[in-house]
């Protein structure tokens, strides 16, 4: 079999307690049998663990935060491209998706492929618009409200039914049991992710997540549902098991078809004791547990790369139920010289 050489830029290398999906995506790419993929790590912070994992990441560059704007991001990516000749970039960080989608035509001109949804598709599943999307498509979802001022929140907090879920614009969610906690987490999330802060009706039940890949034409290229078995105080799954229930695949099919989604996604659901399914979120990227899909027989990141570079890719039709992931912490040892390189040169 002929092995094709590729170079792919990956973000989201913050493999910390609330991990970005980058390292997991890389693990998938390293298992592409007919592709030899070199990884270019694209990091915002000098202490993102992924850039120090040289068995996974071949070369790393620091890039500007999305808030620096598309011009700055493009300038830096052009510099990196001149040195590395990347074939593709896979962004894994919610806050950067808007920039990268906007930049896609320009990136394409300098030889960088992407495989991402449009800005309109991204907006449709934004946390702020998801309840509307769910209602339009007859998908039960929790009552959601958005707040941009403390007095407005306090007024709501006095009459609200607790518990409630308070969510940041991009990341993090907390369960609150009274108005004091509500205001506390509002301030905390506002400081970190900006406004609005979102409140959501608390649905008691099991957390089910589905990782999938859409080809942009309405075809679901693959989907793997997983039940979270252990959830951290930040709402992150620390262990999960791949499950087999056709209703989740049907749901992923439906959402993918309605959106004509292009790229990776994660659907977050709650299943109540009575078996009712509520749509909580749709994330416009692969999740941090994406390597479990590869372990279960659907290497969705590799499938996405193949679609992006025009290789043949048939939809996956099955996966192995019962595959589990258990996340663990590991003190990776490096040297101050490595930290020095990335800190001073912006490269490692």
């Amino acid at each position, binding site marked *: 079999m002929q092995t094709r050489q590729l170079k792919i830029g990956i973000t989201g290398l913050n493999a910390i307690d609330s991990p970005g999906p980058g390292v997991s995506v890389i693990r998938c790419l390293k298992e592409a049998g007919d592709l030899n993929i070199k990884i270019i790590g694209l990091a915002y912070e000098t202490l993102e663990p992924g850039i120090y994992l040289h068995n996974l990441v071949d070369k790393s560059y620091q890039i500007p935060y999305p808030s620096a704007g598309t011009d700055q991001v493009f300038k830096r990516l052009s510099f990196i491209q001149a040195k590395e000749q990347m074939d593709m970039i896979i962004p894994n960080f919610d806050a950067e998706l808007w920039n990268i989608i906007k930049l896609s035509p320009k990136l394409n001109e300098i030889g960088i492929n992407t495989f991402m949804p449009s800005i309109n598709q991204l907006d449709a599943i934004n946390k702020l618009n998801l309840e509307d999307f769910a209602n339009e498509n007859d998908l039960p979802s929790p009552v959601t409200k958005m707040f941009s001022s403390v007095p407005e929140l306090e007024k709501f907090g006095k009459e609200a039914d607790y518990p409630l879920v308070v969510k940041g614009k991009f990341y993090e969610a907390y369960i609150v049991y009274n108005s004091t906690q509500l205001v506390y987490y509002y301030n905390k999330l506002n400081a970190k992710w900006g406004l609005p802060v979102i409140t959501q009706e608390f649905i008691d039940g*099991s957390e089910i997540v589905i990782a999938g890949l859409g080809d942009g034409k309405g075809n679901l290229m693959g989907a793997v549902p997983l*039940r979270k078995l252990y959830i951290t105080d930040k709402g992150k799954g620390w262990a999960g098991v791949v*499950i087999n229930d056709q209703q989740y695949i049907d749901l992923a099919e439906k959402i993918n078809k309605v959106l004509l989604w292009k790229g990776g996604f994660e659907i977050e659901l709650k299943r109540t004791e009575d078996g009712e399914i509520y749509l909580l979120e749709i994330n416009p990227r692969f999740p941090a547990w994406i390597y479990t899909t590869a372990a279960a027989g659907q290497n969705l990141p590799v499938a996405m790369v193949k679609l992006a570079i025009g290789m043949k890719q048939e939809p996956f039709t099955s996966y192995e*139920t*019962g595959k589990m992931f258990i996340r663990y912490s590991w003190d990776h040892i490096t040297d101050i010289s490595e930290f020095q390189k990335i800190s001073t040169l912006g490269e490692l």
Partner: protein
Amino acid sequence: MTKLKKNIALSESGFIFDPATGDSYSVNSTGSKIFELLKEGLSKDQIIENLLNTFDSDKKQVTEDLDDFLIHLAQLKMIENAD
């Protein structure tokens, strides 16, 4: 007719996994035996008969214990209907 939910997996050590929900449980050797008999499609009366042949107990006790166990399985949504 008591019918186990489709695809419920039981290991030799008495570990039960429901692949549709991701729920898992452990049962002792008696529970394991009842699970096997349910998987074979035996009726409640047949299971009682089988248990009486296996364990040293009277029919009243076995029937009561089996009923309790089946109610528990129903609560956990592992059986689709009960006698």
